[in-house]
């Protein structure tokens, strides 16, 4: 059984309203005092009951003036409750008195003794830890100087160092960690973590909800002196976030049906569907990233300049950046369109702009860049941004949904004329347990977006869709990217092609799938990292175009199916913008591990098993003379042939990749013969002409 270390029983605290005795006769004045007339008191805490147990970390949150500090004072014993009782079973050190009681004329060392004494330490005990305290404070050079020569940061450093080494059982931490430089703050957090590990009880008052969520086992919310205790930390924080918003500065816009509402409050938008909130309390925020630091739109002064039924125009200046947001929000026909623009008051090296949409945990599925998947469960205390699927440059839309009637499917689209858009989706337990969808716009150096003036950055569109609409969309999305062969289906993905056996609906490719890669300046550049456009038809063929962001190369894949014979003809062309040297390139097909035989026109063999220690690619065939094709077979698998029509150029190779890939790779490699490199001049070059031929297990192998 656990025993409480702090017990509060019906604690009420009232403060007398003090107006001073300036007016001798007025209300609360001197004469009233003589007559014993009671004046109205201000009730700071109202009947608070709770126990705190040994080793707990408890957070106290609430608006300014809600009684947090009074509660902390009562626990610290600095003031008495007006009614009720509090018992504390252990030495308390409060970090609220950092540097209190420092005598300006005494030296740092003398003040350490004095302050530690006030916190209840004997002189001998201080002697033991004084060196540690001085080290922790990090101002050893100044320690024997009077503290009135110290900067305010040094004051706090010494104060914190003393308080954290007096070794009490209970720590009261007020909003003090926001003082001091970055490094010292880190040290403080680390020290608090250490104290927590040692089983100290910590009571923590903060406005930094992220830290509260990270550190605390329990959270108490104070509201006008009353205690609101929701069972879990996140539930309390959620309640608090809603409570903050409710106060003022709220603007609601709705669409025609009044079914879809957006509530704007101080740089944050929350969405409601059928009166139910479908975003999590953090809502939708804009973030300007500057010097690796995100500046959230809600950290600013916002004014709403125009509001009609479906439109809202709001302006907000960030507190800490000379940046003025201007958000035009329109809501109609189940779609919310946010047209963000911003004005820079001076030139600013912005690195990115982000829009983060936080959704409740109930949303558990997503469709992004051709992948439909499940969100993993949100791990408590996971403050980072855990991405569910690798983000893809240029992918500007995603679907988030769940099988729950009350929560509509959501489609999020971020459109901008500027390149460098991508979307990340994932989980976070930062402040509140949520799914996040983060729409990024990367700003390259010296972009016009960093210059003074007004910039608009496109549209963020959030639409409510039905399940049918989603399925149709998904179907057509896939349709647009699928080539049907006879019994094989080729799915065109970003920079690679995935092949699926239609009989079993299982993929037969994995790892690299079908792709091509170049060696430029000693570095391998695979086609997956190119920026690909949506595939389109051209006559009988499908065209995929991708552009490298780093090299002046544009790839053009021309795919022509010969469905009846299960053959996909592939022509790879290269549009070169500037002269470039390519040292080597290849066209590869990564197959599943069950393929175990290979054959070229020159020799044939078996794939050996891949030993676990293998970390590199291993070429298996011996003969590297250029040839026409390479085939692989496996038991109950369709035979696959990679062939080329430029038989003098390509050497064929069977490869075992590293153990973790567990794939079989067949590859046609082009290496320049006499010249050391392929020297490509600007213009169009055909670099591969060939294809892939599949043969069903049951049909006999034909010669090509």
């Amino acid at each position, binding site marked *: 059984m656990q*025993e409480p270390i702090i017990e509060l029983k019906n604690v009420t605290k009232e*403060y*007398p309203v*003090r107006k001073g*005795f300036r007016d001798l006769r007025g209300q609360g004045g001197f004469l009233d005092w003589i007559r014993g007339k009671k004046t109205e008191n201000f009730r700071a805490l109202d009947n608070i009951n709770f126990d705190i147990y*040994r080793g707990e970390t408890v957070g106290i949150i609430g608006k300014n003036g809600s009684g947090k500090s009074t509660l902390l*004072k*009562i626990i*610290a*014993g*600095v*003031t*008495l*409750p007006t009614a*009720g*009782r*509090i*018992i*504390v*079973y*252990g*030495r*308390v050190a*409060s970090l*609220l*008195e950092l540097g*209190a*009681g420092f*005598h300006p*004329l*005494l030296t740092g060392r*003398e003040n350490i*003794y*004095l302050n530690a*004494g*006030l*916190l*209840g330490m*004997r*002189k001998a005990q201080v002697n033991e830890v004084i060196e540690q305290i001085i080290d922790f404070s990090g101002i050893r050079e100044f320690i024997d100087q*009077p503290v009135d020569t110290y900067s305010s940061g040094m004051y706090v450093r010494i104060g914190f160092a003393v308080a954290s080494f007096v070794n009490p059982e209970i720590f009261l931490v007020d909003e003090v960690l926001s003082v001091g430089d970055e490094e010292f703050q880190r040290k403080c957090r680390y020290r608090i973590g250490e104290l927590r590990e040692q089983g100290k009880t910590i009571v923590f008052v903060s406005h930094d909800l992220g830290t509260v969520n990270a550190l605390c086992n329990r959270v108490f919310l104070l509201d006008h002196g009353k205690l609101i205790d929701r069972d879990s930390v996140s539930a309390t924080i959620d309640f608090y976030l809603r409570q903050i918003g409710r106060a003022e500065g709220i603007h609601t816009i709705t669409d025609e049906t009044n079914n879809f509402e957006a509530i704007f409050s101080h740089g944050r938008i929350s969405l409601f569907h059928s009166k139910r909130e479908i975003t999590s309390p953090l809502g939708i925020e804009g973030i300007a990233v500057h010097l690796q630091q995100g500046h959230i739109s809600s950290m600013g002064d916002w004014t709403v300049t125009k509001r009609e039924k479906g439109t809202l125009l709001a302006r907000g200046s960030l507190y800490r950046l000379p940046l003025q947001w201007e958000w035009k929000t329109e809501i109609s026909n189940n779609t919310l369109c946010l047209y963000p623009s911003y004005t820079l008051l001076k030139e600013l090296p912005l690195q990115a702009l982000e829009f983060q949409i936080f959704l409740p945990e109930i949303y558990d599925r997503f469709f992004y860049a051709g992948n439909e998947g499940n969100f993993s469960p949100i791990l408590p205390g996971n403050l980072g941004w855990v991405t569910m699927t690798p983000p893809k440059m240029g992918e500007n839309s995603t679907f988030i949904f769940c099988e729950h009637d009350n929560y509509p499917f959501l489609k999020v689209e971020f459109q901008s004329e500027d390149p460098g858009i991508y979307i990340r989706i994932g989980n976070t337990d930062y402040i509140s347990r949520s799914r996040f969808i983060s729409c990024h716009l990367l700003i390259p150096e010296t972009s016009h977006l960093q210059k003074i003036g007004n910039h608009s950055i496109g549209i963020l569109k959030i639409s409510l869709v039905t399940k049918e609409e989603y399925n149709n969309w998904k179907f057509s999305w896939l349709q647009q990217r699928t080539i049907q062969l006879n019994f094989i289906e080729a799915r065109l993905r970003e920079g690679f092609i995935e092949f699926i056996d239609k009989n079993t609906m299982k993929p037969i490719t994995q790892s690299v799938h079908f792709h091509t890669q170049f060696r430029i300046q000693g570095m391998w550049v695979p086609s997956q990292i190119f920026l690909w456009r949506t595939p389109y038809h051209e006559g009988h063929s499908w065209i995929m175009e991708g552009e490298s962001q780093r090299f002046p190369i544009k790839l053009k894949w021309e795919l022509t199916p010969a469905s009846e014979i299960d053959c996909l003809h592939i022509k790879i062309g290269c549009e070169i913008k500037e002269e470039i040297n390519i040292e080597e390139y290849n066209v590869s097909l990564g197959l599943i591990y069950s393929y175990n035989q290979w054959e070229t026109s020159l020799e044939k063999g078996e794939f050996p098993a891949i030993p676990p220690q293998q970390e590199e690619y291993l070429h298996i065939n011996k003969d590297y003379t250029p040839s026409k094709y390479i085939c692989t077979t496996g038991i109950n698998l369709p035979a696959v042939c990679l062939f080329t029509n430029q038989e003098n150029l390509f050497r064929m190779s069977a490869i075992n990749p590293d153990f973790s890939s567990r794939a079989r790779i067949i590859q046609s490699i082009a290496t320049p013969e006499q010249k050391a490199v392929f020297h490509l001049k600007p213009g169009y070059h055909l670099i591969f002409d060939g294809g892939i031929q599949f043969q069903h297990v049951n049909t006999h192998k034909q010669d090509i």
Partner: protein
Amino acid sequence: MNPLPKSVYYDSDKQKSILQVPYDLIKAREILFGLVWKEIKARYRYAILGFLWAIIEPVTLMLLLLFVFSFVFKQRIPSTDRVEVPMATQILCGLIFWQYFSSSVSTATFSLINHQNLVKKVFFPREVIPLSSTIYPIVNLSIGFIFLLSVHLILQKTLSIHLFWLIIIFPILFTFSSGLGLILSTAHVHFRDIGNMVNVGLTFGFYASPVFYPLDWVRHACENHSLPYWFYYLYLLNPMAGILTNLRECILYGQAPQPFFLFYTTIISMLCFFTGIYIFRKQSATFSDYL
């Protein structure tokens, strides 16, 4: 495994209990001496003459008063039938102890305001704050006292055994000033008028106590009917009259203190002290609300 010993560190119900005071003070003795030590170290930190000021101040005042009485009012000084003790040591003796009293009362009155940082933020028995203000001036007093003894020794060439009465008389002075300090500091938290009142009162007390004149002069004045006789008893109501007179008796005249004064001042100072402790304790837990 044994459960951790459950010792109560803080219980709001006990904060106003008088019985708790001695226990709290014993626990907080290091804080008390820490505060005194802090004052000692900080007081003359940047002063070149340092603790010499403890002597310079009363000596200057003594010389001034000596001048006034030896030259300006020379004719009007009544002669006494007692052993002649130089005026200089008489004045010095009064001044040194009066200064102890006045500085401890006035700093104690303002001490809570001056230490409001601590009162508002750290939990410890608040009694130590005014008490440290009455303990600290003992340092100055001792320096002055040694000086007084040296002067006395040079002029009179003798020291009396009756000096040992100080062991009783000084604690009376100490409890009296501590008691006043506790009462006045509590009052000052609630009514800031008290600070001004204390300043006026101490100036008044300086003239209304036998600081720079012996008590005999007052008695003489009353016996000569230049003042009504009841005035003498009114004058004696001031415990400082009894305390300072007794101090002179045993330090300068080498006589035992007058029993009536001894008895009377003990009663007054004890009364004052316990009232102070009582009032202070009842109020101290909520001081931070009024600072």
